């Protein structure tokens, strides 16, 4: 059975020992860093803002875990601590949790399972390989299910969802402005978000095409990522998936979810690319956390 499980996990790719250990180390640092920043960012929102002292204490503790967890020596205790803290967070505000919190818990659980205990803070390369492969499966499943859900609920087939988002979310309106004709964009953004408003229907063929290509890509890209079409197709599928993720997030702005998903997609590379991604994502998180203050400064500067 053990060999069967190893074979199943390895379907998403097989890393060299050293690469697997480095990828797992980079994922550990990334997830811990994500949670440390997310803990502070969440304080802006209900229900976290209703008990700020409690959630600020958890965010501080997650920050300590991220700092300690940077070093292999403290990896197990920091990952275990962050996992416990995140479980407390999820339970304390359930059901008003962000999906990236569940994703972080799953990734932390896989990282925790890669520690044997017998080797101290060091990870067995075989376990690291299995944990990284399991993370790749999670990313694959998530990508495929995202496409299936869009298809199942039907709001992407005629571009209704994108029309509604363009109408009600200025972020989406900005992102889609280049491909939606001016008259249609003006009609959509003039619609109100109230009962009776509409129709939230896409008329621009390009918008309908983008809408359908999105769910199609999410369902088909995992086939390429699995390596069923060769290693070149796998690399192309990884690059396209990352581009798709960034494009979606330009409108959705789910930065913590995007950070972990892009890192997960980078696990499909032959070498460790997650380590190089860490400073990029760290900078994005800093800017995201500082954005409210920065935008106030910019507005104040513009006014004076």
């Amino acid at each position, binding site marked *: 059975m053990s060999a069967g499980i190893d074979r199943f996990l390895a379907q998403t790719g097989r890393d060299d020992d050293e690469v697997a250990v480095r990828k797992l180390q980079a994922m550990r640092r990334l997830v811990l860093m994500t949670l440390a920043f997310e803990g502070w960012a969440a304080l802006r929102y209900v229900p976290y803002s209703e008990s700020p002292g409690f959630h600020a204490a958890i965010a501080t503790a997650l920050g300590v875990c991220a700092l300690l967890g940077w070093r292999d020596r403290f990896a197990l205790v920091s990952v275990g601590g962050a996992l416990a803290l995140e479980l407390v967070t999820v339970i304390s505000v359930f059901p*008003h949790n962000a999906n990236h919190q569940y994703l972080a818990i799953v990734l932390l659980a896989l990282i925790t*399972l890669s520690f044997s205990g017998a080797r101290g803070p060091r990870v067995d390369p075989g376990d690291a390989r299995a944990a990284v492969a*399991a993370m790749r499966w999670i990313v694959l499943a998530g990508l495929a299910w995202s496409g299936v859900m869009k298809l199942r609920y039907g709001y992407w087939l005629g571009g209704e969802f994108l029309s509604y988002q363009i109408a009600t979310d200025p972020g989406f309106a900005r992102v889609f402005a280049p491909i939606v004709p001016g008259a249609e964009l003006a009609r959509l953004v003039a619609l109100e978000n109230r009962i009776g408003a509409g129709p939230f229907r896409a008329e621009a063929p390009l918008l309908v095409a983008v809408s359908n290509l999105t769910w199609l890509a999410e369902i088909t890209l995992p086939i390429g990522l699995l390596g069923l079409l060769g290693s070149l197709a796998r690399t192309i599928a990884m690059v396209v998936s990352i581009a798709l993720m960034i494009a979606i997030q330009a409108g959705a702005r789910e930065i913590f979810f995007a950070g972990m998903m892009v890192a997960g997609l980078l696990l499909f590379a032959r070498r460790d690319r997650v380590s190089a991604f860490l400073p990029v994502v760290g900078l994005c998180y800093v800017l995201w956390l500082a954005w409210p203050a920065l935008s106030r400064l910019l507005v104040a500067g513009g006014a004076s």
Partner: protein
Amino acid sequence: MTGSVRRAAMFGVVTLVALWPAVHLGLVARAGTDPWELFGWAMYSQPAARVQVRVDVERAGVLEPLRAMGGMRRQVEAFARARTTLGRLASPKELLATVFASDASIGAVELVLRDVKLDLESALLVGIDERVRFERPRTVR
């Protein structure tokens, strides 16, 4: 824990995460939970769910809207948030207890739950109302 047990646990985690969205589909269909929530990979699959809650109270056989203020207002909002996320799995028990306790003359409470949805056929935003009635329980005075 041996290496094979740990890898079996990893396999279990992957299996759980991969199969959960199928359960999630059922929860959305049967209980009316919000597709965006509960890790079903269905965020942005449709407009975010929104349920508005109005509380009507019956005094001496006359039904009228309750003017909830302060703490009770916050409870109504909290229930609306829970109902939006959990659908019919959200319990109104705490809200009902507060409403009945606030006035002994209230004989029954009707929750008017308005589900605001984007109708695929017309592409218009529509409100689908559901009324749920609760008689004053005998234990609450």
